[in-house]
């Protein structure tokens, strides 16, 4: 079963690598892409620890609700681990 995650809904200022329209939304991990230096630190020329990057799949229904033209279609976005919180499996 795919792992369910939610993109954190926090809104810090500065160079952020989680698009606004995905924050607070729930998706499934499609695959792990491996570790990359945290770009939110690199952006300020600071030492950057490796952070795992995940491809996360979101349904259009989750993103746009009743306005979604094709609710079953999905968007895949690459999101760093520190922006994701794991959710319990769906019942």
């Amino acid at each position, binding site marked *: 079963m795919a792992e369910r995650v939610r993109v954190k809904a926090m*809104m810090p*200022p500065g*160079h*952020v690598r989680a*698009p*606004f*329209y995905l*924050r607070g939304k729930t998706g499934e991990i499609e695959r792990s892409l491996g570790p990359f230096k945290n770009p939110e630190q*690199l952006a300020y*020329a600071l030492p950057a620890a490796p952070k795992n990057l995940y491809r996360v799949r979101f349904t259009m229904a989750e993103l746009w609700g009743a306005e979604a033209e094709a609710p079953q279609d999905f968007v895949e976005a690459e999101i760093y681990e520190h922006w994701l919180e794991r959710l319990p499996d769906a019942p």
Partner: protein
Amino acid sequence: MDKMDGRRWHDMGGLPAGEVPKDGHDFAIWEKRVDALMILCGTKGHFTVDGLRRALEDMGPEAFENHTYYERWIAAVNQNLIEAGVYSIEELGTRMEQIKARGPSYGEASVKDG
């Protein structure tokens, strides 16, 4: 954004955008040079593409309305090079005056050191 909803101006995903322009375009020599300069800066370790993006985002929407793509890029490259200590404001200003004195045309300004 007028209200403090956390969305910054560059973060446009999910907003209405209208038609996507599909007409192609060519690049001027100076624009290609800016592109090459950005790559060189990364190769030399002065800053990353993340630093470029951060500076572009910090310019705000007025820069997006009033300047072209590579005009914004060179401003962001300059911002990062100053922050990295590659050159000082004084050195930059002096150099700009030297090049300006060569002449107004691209050919004159492009003459090598001297």
